[in-house]
């Protein structure tokens, strides 16, 4: 299967911060895995995600994503890697309100030449993804601003999946949904990931979701930064 994310002795601190926010000795996520990363707010979840997504840079040799040492890639190369291989779903407000659902999905290839190449017919592909995620055909041409929050998150998921990236990072994508929509959303997301052999890193502070995932990682277990602070 291969490795998707490999963390080796990652230590990250924000410039000017007195102590590291993240000290993770080891973390490995295989390709195709569906992993739940759980952590309280302020535990460094978002920072870890932005390192994996390559928005911020980890120190060299400590973080590999899809075989690339992100610490050695330039900003531009990290942006390209994210564009081509990583789908990102936010908690909320994923979409550009002035584009319709389908346009929001195809927007994924705007900065991603590799994704563009993998897709023969962008509109058709977007339609099928939206259908797969349970958006009614009539809603695909509606402006994103006119969709419900649940529908918006489905469109966001479709966009993340567009052009078959290797990794999907979902940062609390269900926190704005009620329990029923939440479970349904996770189910369709699972199905779509399985169909595309996509790795899913699902981040939440919600304990109730753990049973649905094959593997759950507690950030507090792997991140030693806080404990070290406490001991000192």
């Amino acid at each position, binding site marked *: 299967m291969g490795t998707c994310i490999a963390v080796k002795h990652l230590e990250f601190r924000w410039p000017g911060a007195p102590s590291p926010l993240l000290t993770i000795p080891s973390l490995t996520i295989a390709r195709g895995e569906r992993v739940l990363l759980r952590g309280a707010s302020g535990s460094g979840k978002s920072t870890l995600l*932005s390192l994996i997504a390559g928005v911020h840079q980890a120190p060299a040799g400590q973080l590999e994503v899809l075989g690339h040492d992100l610490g050695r890639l330039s900003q531009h190369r990290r942006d390209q890697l994210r564009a081509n291989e990583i789908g990102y779903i936010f908690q909320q407000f994923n979409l550009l309100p002035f584009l319709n659902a389908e346009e929001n999905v195809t927007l994924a290839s705007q900065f991603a030449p590799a994704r563009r190449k993998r897709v023969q017919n962008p509109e058709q592909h977007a339609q099928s993804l939206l259908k797969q995620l349970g958006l009614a055909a009539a809603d695909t041409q509606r402006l994103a601003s006119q969709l419900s929050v649940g529908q918006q998150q489905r469109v966001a998921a479709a966009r993340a999946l567009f052009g078959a990236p290797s990794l999907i990072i979902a940062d609390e994508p269900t926190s704005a949904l009620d329990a029923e929509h939440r479970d349904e959303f996770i189910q369709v997301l699972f199905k779509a990931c399985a169909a595309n052999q996509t790795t899913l890193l699902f981040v939440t502070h919600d304990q109730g979701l753990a049973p649905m995932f094959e593997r759950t990682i507690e950030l507090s277990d792997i991140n030693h930064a806080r404990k070290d602070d406490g001991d000192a």
Partner: protein
Amino acid sequence: MLKLAWASLRNRRASAILTILAIAISTLLLLGVERVREQTQANFANTIAGTDLIVGARTGSTQLLLSSVFHIGSLNNTLSWDSYQYLTKLPGVKWHIPMALGDSVAGYPVVATTSDFFSYFRYGDGLSLELAKGTVFSEMNQATLGAEVAARLGLQQGDPLTLAHGSGGISFSDHDQHPFVVSGILNRTGTPVDQAVYIHLEGLGLLHGEFDSEHSADHDHDDHHDHASHAPPVYTLSAVLIGLEARPLALRMQRQINTYKNEPLTAIMPGMALTELWRTLALFEQALLAIAALVVATGLLGMLTTLLASLRERRREMAVLRALGAGPFSIFSLLVSEAMLLTVIGVSTGVLLLFLGLMLGGDLLLTHTGMLLRASPLTSNEWVLLAAILAAALILSLIPAWRAFRNALADGLTIKL
């Protein structure tokens, strides 16, 4: 990228349209001023051609030019018929047009001259005057009208005409015992010729000789030492236009006339005097152009303000684009494209408005102000101005683009609301 910028702008269409409008109007103003400047200068330089010297009594060159060519202001001094005779006999003089000013028809200046005026006067690139209707005056009581005078006063060939003493619109001493008759109407020239009434020198002499008792004193005085072969039609002239056999003679002849002993005279070369006068006016025109440029700057600053203000509410949009792999440079160029899109649309709208205005209002402008503005294609100067607006917009757009670039790096994927 442009498509995305376009969609994003459409989303903020209220402020985008206002920005475009501001740029369009300022472009319109700038181009309008430039066009007025250019065409006024062209019209100005075209008012007289082929005349090598203008001679009048001792006065300033601008005053002589204004009164003899533009019929603006009045000359306090006149030159005598004797001096005119002297001028006509100077070697190298090919033709000469005497002019006596001072009367008016409903505010339009009356120029008393000879039929030589119609033979030798040139304007533009050497165009001669042409009649639209009728004939050049031949009788003493006939008048030939400029196109504008005829149009404004609604005069036709054969209509009677009453001259008034003085140049004002209202005169208490109308020469109504001596009505003139319109013999012909000139074609439009776009020069002050359009706004003048031309009569025979002898017609004027008759008029003044019989009507004005003040002139009778002159009669005696002039008769006293009149050495011309026959009595002159008038005793004083306002100006004389002179054409020479060879242009290079002008400089020497100017000196000769300026130092004429019997009467203090002023001779000017119209080309030089026009340039000199234009330089004075150009200052005013340049001030106008500077104001227009400042208005453009205001329009562009408005755009800058709008773009900077929009950045705050668009952090969400930027974070989404960053998540999709847009690098900071993509964000940067997105902002630049937006600014350029706004400017290009604004400038095009401005140009469109200019042409629309000129096509619809050009005739109105001509009849009301006598200003001839054509919807002619953009000149190279105007292209330079448009390019300057775009360049200024490009430079200004770097500011919000740089801000967005910095935000993109700092915010990353976190959405700060």
